């Protein structure tokens, strides 16, 4: 049957296009314009060419912050994705406990970022916080404001606590959509628990795992509020991620040109990683189409 084309549908896209133009395209255009100029305020700009890009690319500060971002995202994904899958697999698929589990899982997601930072800031304090006081009383010298390792562990545990639920809920949605017939067939074939996971559940969760991975990568790579509230980027610069450094440059130092250049490089890295991952995940196990005609 021939597909019907209705070009009037394009009219329905106009509101979305306008929204994206105002919220994304115009700001990006402005950032590109700022990245090649210098300003001292009052809408006065001076041409700087590619100077800011060179400065950013040759600055140790940028590469250090990028390294911290990559390390943080790697640790976060290594923990949250497997943990999210494991919790989703352990959750009941039917019965009265389903809504209880779902609500419990959704609770951390409802808490705003700055509140999460404040909760953990207090939680980790040795004088009034439950975690800090408990660790202190059993002889562990825990101090996230002075010790780099403690600061990193606290930020990682805080992020895992806040965002693993998202992975769990996405994986759970993928799991409950698998028809019972698949499991019946596996039982008839005598498949082991691992085989059911490897050949039924994991392939069926591929779509939601792509979304979970991309969301968690982008969010962890752009993390700002929680570490800013918890450690302020310290001790020293040990938890100064690119977003924190960017805000320090743009708002703290009012270096809008270098900040714009840095944010464009930052965006390109996010785009590249997301595209590579999306392409790889979308094509693993997908059916290959026929070879097309060359352009």
């Amino acid at each position: 049957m021939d597909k019907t084309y209705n070009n009037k549908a394009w009219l329905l896209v106009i509101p979305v296009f306008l929204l994206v133009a105002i919220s994304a395209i115009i700001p990006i255009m402005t950032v590109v314009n700022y990245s090649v100029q210098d300003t001292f305020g009052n809408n006065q700009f001076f041409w700087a060419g590619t100077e800011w890009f060179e400065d950013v690319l040759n600055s140790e500060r940028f590469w250090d912050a990028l390294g911290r971002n990559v390390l943080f995202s790697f640790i976060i994904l290594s923990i949250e994705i497997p943990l999210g899958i494991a919790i989703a697999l352990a959750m009941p698929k039917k019965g009265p406990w389903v809504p209880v589990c779902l609500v419990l899982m959704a609770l951390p997601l409802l808490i705003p970022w700055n509140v999460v930072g404040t909760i953990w800031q207090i939680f980790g304090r040795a004088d009034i916080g439950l975690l800090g006081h408990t660790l202190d009383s059993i002889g562990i010298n825990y101090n996230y404001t002075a010790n780099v390792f403690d600061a990193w562990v606290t930020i990682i545990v805080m992020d895992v606590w806040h965002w693993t639920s998202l992975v769990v809920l996405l994986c759970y949605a993928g799991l409950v959509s698998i028809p019972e017939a698949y499991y019946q067939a596996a039982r008839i074939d005598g498949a082991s628990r691992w085989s059911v996971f490897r050949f039924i559940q994991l392939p069926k969760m591929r779509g939601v795992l792509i979304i979970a991975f991309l969301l968690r990568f982008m969010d962890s790579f752009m993390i700002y509020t929680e570490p800013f509230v918890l450690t302020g980027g310290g001790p020293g610069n040990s938890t100064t991620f690119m977003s924190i450094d960017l805000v320090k440059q743009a708002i703290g130092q009012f270096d809008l040109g270098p900040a714009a250049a840095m944010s464009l490089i930052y965006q390109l890295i996010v785009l590249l990683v997301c595209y590579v991952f999306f392409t790889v995940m979308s094509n693993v196990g997908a059916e290959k189409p026929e070879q097309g005609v060359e352009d």
Partner: protein
Amino acid sequence: MELSWMAWTGPTALFWLGIISCLVGMCVWEYFSPGGNPRLGILRFETTRGDRLFISLLGSAFIHLAWLGLVGPSLWWAMGISLIYAVIVFRTV
């Protein structure tokens, strides 16, 4: 409309015109040859014309950044390499 806050310059306007021209060109191409010409290239995954343009633009951005960071501010060579890279992407990916 007051647009001084956007800090437009001639070179950045040219840059955006280039990007918009690419998109308009792709629309015209799609109009005359619909379907996006999906195919399996050397990367062994299906790409359409739009994918190839995206890979070309993203790769070109990194070529320019690498040139700026490793060589210097003169970007003509980087632009030349990017054009060759884009041709290779459109022919082989």
